[in-house]
């Protein structure tokens, strides 16, 4: 019997010759990521559990992103506790204002193909873009991993998602994952792995794959995996022969197979206030907007800024509409500056902020009020996520976002 990607990663980790869904396994963790907002809680639990030292200093990454820049005086408490923990434990992987954790983990090579990584944030599923089994956990669980280097998992079942063909003009990875979530519904992949393959996926950049793996959690998935290829290796700085074991067997067993023809996909939006409430952009065109947000770990990368810049070049953001652009990381911001994208966006009237979670996590950078409507490129549109419960949030691709910013209403590229 063959194995899926997740089974192979677990087998490699535990040394088992075979594992199957439903089995409980204790895995050795390759890396953990803790972000600012939960640092005090992790540290508290770590001490309460009676641990003194983290199991391996090299395997721990601390990232400040939700509270950067600070927007309340209490915010710095998280930094103080984080700074002290870094010094006490002698940690070296530590980022105070370099971008969003999920961007930095693969970008900095902390999460690599075949690794098992856990993070204190639900969008930790992102690192599946490079074939890394990564998932979000709570702070108590994280404290236990910090002390032991191990975690139990139930080997998940896998849903195979096959996408073949060439995406039509104006359709992007974001439209694919939104469509998929709409089809699966918000709980359709609960505790399952989404395994992506097909010619469309093969053609995709690692950044686009990241958009997809990032949002897998919105269907309840434990992880989202792409088998590593040449692009992955180049991105992660590994050799193909070191990851050639990581592929899905022909006779692997899937609990479900979903097939899509790229040519049939269209630009879509997640409508208020569930990520699985998917409608075609065409259906919603003309809906008035107050704000547009391009950024987040879902869609704040260079290719996203490039698309936005292409659309906004020589144009202006509609009057009385705000366009907020937040690059996902410091290096992306720098590259986008060098490529001229930032200049184009700022010239068009965008407000370009420092890299961080920004508006997506709902703590600053563009909060809205009753009766306002925002189109955003991030991953969640839950009630109250970006202000009051009377704010309407639509989620779409950077192209849809940029075109809508110019029009001042929902519009297609």
């Amino acid at each position, binding site marked *: 019997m063959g194995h899926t990607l997740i089974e192979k990663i677990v087998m490699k980790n535990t040394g088992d010759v075979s594992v199957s869904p439903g089995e409980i396994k204790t895995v050795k963790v390759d890396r953990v990521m803790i972000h600012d907002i939960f640092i005090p809680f992790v540290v508290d639990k770590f001490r309460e*559990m009676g641990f003194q030292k983290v199991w391996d200093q090299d395997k721990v990454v601390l990232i400040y992103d939700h509270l950067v820049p600070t927007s309340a005086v209490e915010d710095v408490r998280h930094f103080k506790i984080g700074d002290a923990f870094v010094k006490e434990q002698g940690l070296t992987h530590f980022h105070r204002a370099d971008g969003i954790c999920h961007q930095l983990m693969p970008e900095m090579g902390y999460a690599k193909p075949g690794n098992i990584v856990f*993070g204190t944030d*639900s969008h930790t599923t992102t690192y599946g873009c490079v074939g890394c089994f990564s998932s979000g956990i709570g702070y108590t669980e994280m404290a*236990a991993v910090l002390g*032991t280097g191990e975690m139990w998992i139930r080997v998940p079942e896998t849903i195979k998602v096959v996408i073949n063909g060439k995406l039509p003009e104006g359709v992007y990875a974001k439209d694919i994952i939104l469509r998929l979530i709409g089809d699966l519904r*918000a709980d359709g992949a*609960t505790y399952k792995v989404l395994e992506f393959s097909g010619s469309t996926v093969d053609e995709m950049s690692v950044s686009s794959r990241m958009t997809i793996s990032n949002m897998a959690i*919105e269907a309840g998935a434990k992880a989202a995996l792409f088998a590593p290829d040449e692009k992955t290796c180049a991105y992660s700085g590994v050799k193909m022969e070191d990851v050639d074991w990581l592929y899905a067997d022909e006779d692997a067993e899937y609990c479900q197979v979903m097939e899509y023809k790229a040519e049939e996909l269209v630009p879509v939006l997640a409508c208020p206030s569930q990520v699985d409430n998917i409608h075609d952009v065409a259906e919603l065109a003309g809906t008035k907007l107050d704000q547009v947000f391009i950024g987040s770990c879902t869609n704040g990368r260079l290719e996203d800024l490039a698309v936005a810049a292409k659309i906004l070049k020589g144009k202006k953001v509609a009057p009385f509409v705000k366009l907020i652009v937040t690059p996902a990381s410091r290096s992306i911001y720098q590259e986008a500056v060098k490529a001229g994208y930032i200049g184009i966006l700022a010239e068009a009237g965008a407000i370009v902020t420092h890299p961080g979670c920004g508006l997506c996590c*709902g*703590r600053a950078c563009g909060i809205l009020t009753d009766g306002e409507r925002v189109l955003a490129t991030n991953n969640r549109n839950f009630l109250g996520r970006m202000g009051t419960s009377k704010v309407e949030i639509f989620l779409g691709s950077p192209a849809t976002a940029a075109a809508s910013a110019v029009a001042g209403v929902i519009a297609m590229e």
Partner: protein
Amino acid sequence: MEQFKGKVWLLGDDIDTDIIIPTEYLALPSVEDMKKYAFSPLREELAGQIEKGDIIVAGKNFGCGSSREQAPEIIKQLGVRCVIAKSFARIFFRNAINNGLLLIENKELSDDVAEGDVITVTIGEKIHAGGKDYPITPLPENLMDILNAGGLVKAMQARNGV
């Protein structure tokens, strides 16, 4: 088997972690400070109405969204005895177990009960509501170990001899 009674608060499908505790309040110093904002985007008054021993009954995918563990902690601190839902999102599920908050999966109950009903839970066995019994599927052994230890912190303390 341990048995308890509780008053039902009825919620719908996909009760996400932003509803359970909005991000705005996550940097407050303690769960105690946060708990009055629980469920505020959906039902602002709810946190103040929940009493010790009450039971939350909900639809599918309860706790979807963030890894924020404050969500189950707050529910526990509000005095909720257990949450019964058609299904739970998995990060929330682990977090709840790790904090010793009892979760029960049941596909039918939320369609049958009304808010304010008093129902009886016999742990590991059944729910009794409106003259009907709803069986409970037991949890896997490793999870029961954590629950029996009183949560993951206590389990780790035992491991570390604290």
